[in-house]
């Protein structure tokens, strides 16, 4: 029973990471596609202002997910880390380049350096979601074996993996565009609002198509998971689809109310759908389940306690952070007025 609770915590953490960090990574995608220096300037500025104060906090959800995974489900963790080593290294590379490129870009002066660091930030924002997607696809397609000693290319380059990787990138772009519509609206920036509405629409269609393709591909690569997704997890997938369709309808109608909530719930429903569809298997294609692959009782209790403590301490912190950010109290120019003589 307690291992189910911990699994639910893990899925929840992954869903939160997908929504918030997904939007940050997607910001890099739109930065990459924003065009030349001049044309892209207002777009890049909005992306920069939106991501700057929050990306590190959003990033911590990944650390938390990794720690829960290795603490609660150590055998599955070790197997994934062995079989999918290469895409995980590349995802980590993306994380390092993205963070460093983003932080450095703000401090350099001179167009050439800003361009270089900006390109590193933007390009690496694609790297991480894509390769994490291939890892998830690798697990979903049942390519992770318990006895496997070596990482193979075939394990994470199956159609399921590559489709999942592309899906992750599309979802990141979608989440980012939705967040940025709201940010542009709160600044009264109609130009960017229109700009990101077009992109959100495009990304939403693309993400929907890729979801369907991935699901169809799972029919071949992992029938048990396909069965779970279209059986037990069907209500969640319907919820996710409905959220996506309503959001798309709102976008085409030019409305922007409830867009963020709808897209967030949509993504969370799909992540949860994956968990429910796969339950109680930890690694499809192996005999590893929640029952035989979980840590001892006391460890699981401790994880639930830590998560509860995080709920009490971290959630109010996040609410404060996003509340201040939403009211534009957090500005990425900490040094202004520092040296002005007081007259």
């Amino acid at each position, binding site marked *: 029973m307690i291992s189910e609770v911990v699994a639910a915590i893990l899925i929840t953490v992954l869903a939160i990471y997908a929504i918030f960090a997904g939007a940050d990574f997607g910001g890099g995608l739109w930065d990459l596609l924003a065009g030349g*220096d001049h044309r892209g300037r207002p777009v890049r500025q909005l992306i920069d202002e939106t991501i700057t104060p929050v990306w590190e906090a959003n990033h*911590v959800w990944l650390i938390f997910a990794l720690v829960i995974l290795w*603490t609660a489900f150590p055998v599955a963790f070790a197997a994934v880390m062995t079989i999918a080593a290469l895409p995980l290294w590349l995802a980590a590379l993306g994380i390092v380049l993205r963070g460093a490129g983003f932080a450095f870009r703000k401090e*350099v002066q001179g167009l050439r350096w800003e361009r270089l660091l900006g390109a590193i930030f933007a390009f690496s924002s694609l790297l991480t979601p894509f390769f994490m997607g291939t890892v998830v696809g690798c697990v979903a397609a049942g390519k992770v074996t318990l006895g496997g000693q070596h990482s193979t290319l075939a394990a994470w380059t199956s159609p399921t993996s590559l489709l999942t990787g592309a899906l992750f990138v599309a979802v990141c772009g979608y989440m980012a565009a939705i967040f940025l519509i709201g940010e542009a609206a709160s600044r009264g920036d109609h130009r960017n609002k229109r700009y990101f509405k077009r992109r959100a629409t495009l990304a939403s269609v693309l993400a929907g198509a890729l979801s369907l393709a991935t699901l169809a591909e799972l029919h071949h690569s992992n029938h048990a998971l396909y069965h779970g997704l279209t059986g037990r997890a069907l209500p969640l997938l319907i919820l996710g689809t409905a959220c996506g369709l309503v959001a798309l309808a709102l976008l085409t109608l030019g409305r922007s109310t409830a867009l963020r909530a709808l897209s967030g719930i949509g993504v969370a429903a799909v992540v949860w759908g994956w968990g429910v569809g796969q339950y109680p298997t930890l690694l499809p294609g192996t005999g590893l389940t929640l029952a035989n692959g979980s840590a001892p009782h006391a460890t699981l209790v401790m994880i639930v306690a*830590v998560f509860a403590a995080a709920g009490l301490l971290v959630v109010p912190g996040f609410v404060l952070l996003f509340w201040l950010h939403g009211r534009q109290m957090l500005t990425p120019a900490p040094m202004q007025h520092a040296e002005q003589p007081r007259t």
Partner: protein
Amino acid sequence: MMLLIHASVPLATAREVVPARAQMASTLGFHIILACFGIAFPTIVLAAEYIGLKRSDEVAMTLARRWSQALGVLVAVGAVTGTVLSFEMGLLWPGLMRKYGPVIGLPFSVEGIFFFLEAIFTGIYLYGWRRLSGWAHFWSGIPVAVSGIFGALSVMAANSWMNQPGGFTIKAGRVVSVEPLNVFFNRAAAYEMPHMLLAAYLVAGFGVASVYAVGFLRGRRDRYHRLGFAIPFVLAAALTPVEFLVGDTAARAIASDQPVKFAAMEYVTHTTRDAPEYLGGVYANGHVYGGLRIPDLDSLLVGFSTHTKVTGLDSVPAADRPPVTWLIHLAFDVMAGLGSLSVIPLLWLLLAWWRRRALPRHRWFWLLAAGAGPGALVAMEAGWIVTEVGRQPWVVYKLMTTAQAATTNQGVIASLSAVIVLYAVLGVATILILRLLARHWRAGEEQDSAVPYGPPSTHATALGGEAA
């Protein structure tokens, strides 16, 4: 990066344990520097802001603002290099995590909470300068400093557990029950936790102060530079005697908890009473060459009596002894030596304050102070060499060897090479960025970093031009 040295040690094993260790050592050795600043720098920034607010001191406020900008860069690089370590726990050491994940994961999960709080309030503190009122802004930084401390203690709980594992039961090769409190507060935690926490404050304090000491030596002696020196330096110098006592206690505890590690640290070749102390020297083939030999001193330091029996390297088979004994010993000497030296600037400072109520004026003091930053850094890295290389061949002391923990994947040498190149670039870039910031500050231009790359025009015209 210093930790790389022990990569050259051959270790008979099928798995690529040597490159894996080299990679862990280089990434950890790099991250730990940023971690020190992440842990202790916020306290220094807040101290400056407190002085600035309390005394309406514009100079202190300027220091706090500028430091927070440098902190922002260091925290960002620290966050991503820390993430690499989380990945490496599985990518390099799946054997360790498969078996002991449910145990060693507990302190890391607690650390997660503090990492969250640190990241959240860092976002508020770094970017709240303009719109938050003075004291509200100050208080938004307090959780950053506090969670930095507790996060560090959690990580040290995990590391000390590897040295003194406890709090779990194994049946048929699997961990079947865990007692979280005994994992967290293991035998080594009592000395490893304070030792590293204080080290972080010394590295960050002396490190920041060094910058201003160099400025002082170059003739920049205005109040801005004196205050920028005094705040971090006084904090760090005040903690040096405490660190000295903690370190001394730790060494004595290791003599009883991990006698073979201690034997390597002190060149105790044979279990003996009246063990001599070696300063320097190279150990090879069971003999110590060179170095200063002080009879009976080691026994005296371990048990306050020259007749204290000290366990030697010969107490275990050669395979269970740590490799590169000379490196462990010399690293220990460097750490202990620098630690002892660090008391001098404190005494000098106290003397000058007692006599003149001012900072010392003598050039030698400022040279010493300028060297204190790099010195603290070297001592901290040397300490990590002692504890990590000294624990070998074990990853979990006496329970699992590092070779058993290592990945079965080939090609670690490729990721190692990539990491070395990437981190070298990252390290150079971080230093260049910090120097760039300093140059702008000196030129009196405060950075308006709001706009990502665009044509060299001002904010307003660019946006206006766009709309037109």
